[in-house]
């Protein structure tokens, strides 16, 4: 019976470390003593925080293992910035009032890089389901909301990291490395990363097959990118395009970022009017903070939907 020495580690050490022992067992043993009927505080805030943190950390570990993914997701921004940006600037030089086209599309391209990385992070949830790992998380004695939060924070961090790499390229396309500007862009892209991950997680709650998920995300993301004004100024558009542009959530991430960039450029008033008109709602110039709030609120709404969907799932 020396083998029993391992027993101390067994038998409710999880409960024991916190506060109380498993209660109903105690009540059985006590033959109905009411005192023994202490409820185990099943969920502690600390436990939930640990869960959020570990799900977040898992995203980072997996991302850091996947160097290829870091490289491939940088491919697209490079193409847009340096190939498309350089090539088209010869055509567009008349319309840009001397501003480099690459500088103009930079905020939009950065948003795109962030979006794709965030989308792939959310996609891993679909893999998790296919490879069974989701089940391990779903049966854990923690709130589903903690799991969803951890996942969204993880996706946002990873996508934010990708954004930082693009942020480092700012100097190459004529965007100054001003501290305030960098901080503003960083905050905005982090917000976007979070919102897109929440969107992806919300979709992943329903779509259980990788192919359908990817097709659906592509279908959502490409129009969002093109309609957002990432590649063109948002004033003087035909009405149909103007309406679609204002309905596109990405508009409200690209626009404040562009405003921040242009605030740090020394250019003519005409160029500023033409290239950085700002988003208007029925003639009202929407302030940057309101735009950021639109992205944030949408992100939170999708997060809430994702949480509800995962909490319902058996």
């Amino acid at each position, binding site marked *: *019976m020396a*083998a*029993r020495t*391992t*027993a*101390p*580690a*067994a*038998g*409710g*050490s*999880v*409960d*024991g*470390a*916190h*506060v*109380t*022992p*498993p*209660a*109903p*067992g*105690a*009540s*059985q*043993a*006590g033959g109905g003593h009411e005192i*023994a009927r*202490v409820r*185990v505080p*099943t*969920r*502690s805030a*600390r*436990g939930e925080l*640990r*869960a959020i*943190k*570990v799900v977040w950390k*898992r995203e980072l*570990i*997996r991302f850091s*293992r*996947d160097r290829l993914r870091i490289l491939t997701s940088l491919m697209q921004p490079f193409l847009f910035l340096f190939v498309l940006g350089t090539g088209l600037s010869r055509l567009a030089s008349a319309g840009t009032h001397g501003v480099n086209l690459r500088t103009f599309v930079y905020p939009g391209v950065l948003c795109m890089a962030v979006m794709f990385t965030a989308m792939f992070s959310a996609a891993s949830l679909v893999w*998790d389901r296919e*490879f*069974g*790992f989701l*089940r*391990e*998380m*779903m*049966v*854990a*004695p*923690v709130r589903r909301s903690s799991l969803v939060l951890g996942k969204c924070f993880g996706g946002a961090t990873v996508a934010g990291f990708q954004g930082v790499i693009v942020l480092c390229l700012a100097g190459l396309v004529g965007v100054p490395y001003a501290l305030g500007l960098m901080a503003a862009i960083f905050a905005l892209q982090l917000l976007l990363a979070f919102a897109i991950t929440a969107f992806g997680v919300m979709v992943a709650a329903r779509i259980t097959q990788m192919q359908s998920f990817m097709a659906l995300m592509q279908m959502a993301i490409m129009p969002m990118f093109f309609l957002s004004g990432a590649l063109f100024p948002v004033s003087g558009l035909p009405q149909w395009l103007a309406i679609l542009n204002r309905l596109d959530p990405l508009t409200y991430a690209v626009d404040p970022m562009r405003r921040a960039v242009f605030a740090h450029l020394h250019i003519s008033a005409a160029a500023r009017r033409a290239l950085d008109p700002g988003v208007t709602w029925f003639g009202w110039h929407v302030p940057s903070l309101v735009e950021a709030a639109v992205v944030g609120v949408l992100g939170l709404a999708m997060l809430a939907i994702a949480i509800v969907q995962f909490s319902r799932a*058996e």
Partner: protein
Amino acid sequence: MSELAITTPPTATPASSAAAPGACAVAVSVKGLAKRYGEVEAVRGIDFEVRGGEIFGFLGPNGAGKSTTINMLCTLVRPTDGSALVAGHDVVSERDDVRRNIGLVFQDTTLDGYLSAEQNLRLHAELYGVPRELVGERMRQVMEMVGLWERRASLVNTFSGGMKRRLEIARGLLHSPRVLFLDEPTVGLDPQTRSSIWRYIRELKAREDITIFLTTHYMDEAEYCDRIAIMDQGRIIVLDTPEALKAKVGKDRVQIETDDDQAAIAALRKRFGIDATVAEGMVTFGVLEGEHFVPRLFDEWDPAHPPIRSVSVARPSLDDVFMSYTGTTIRDAESTSTDRMRNVARMMAR
């Protein structure tokens, strides 16, 4: 045994040692549990109890409702009727209490292949809130038990099927559950790995204060259980120790091979008063003291009857137990229940 099992965990309050005996007496208690998926009744109102510290086996063909039952006990599937207490907690109203007191090993792997073995276990410890100061030691303990401590830094993707299963068992034990559920722990593994998994399970029972609840459709594995419940078509047909079940059958199993099975069955009934059936392609029947019956069989076998090509006599096995209660062997039941199982799978996929 039960006294030793109460050893107070150093981290627990004194009250928990008082709780242990009460909790140990009955690990799982099920009353009228049922689950229906649309038209399909996967589990049709079952009652049973699992005692603390035993290895309890659920035996039955695929599609008998074993996995659905285990999923209900693990709080993964909501019962449509009845109730179940696991480690003293109700599986519906006290879901989290149940979850923190059970360990799970599923049929399919639920490991993250892109993490190392150690990272998988650490993640589990965090999700289950295992106290940080205990994680390292406990992790070493469970990994050494399944012989994977040396491989802790390897990515799980590089592991074989058997190693993954062992790691999952280790992970299931990490948070010191009171009940460990193993759903078909050896399915899809080669015989050697199967027996090593069983060695770990038995070792586990000796070392840890734990109740093991498992499902299997391998008859030979059910012999390792302290008690087994035979399940077929959503019902528990019989529940007892393997020995008692075999004793109830009593008869040896005789199988004969002939050219004309139906004629042979008729002959057996007429001459010996034996009811035989065809199972696994052979004329099969049970008799007391089969080895003495065989000479008599040949003495009295009429040359007009179809000649006997071969005879085999076997001591009662759980297969015979299954057969005596269901009228079919488990292998034959598997094939007929496949359609049923497909239906259930389709319902679950929704």
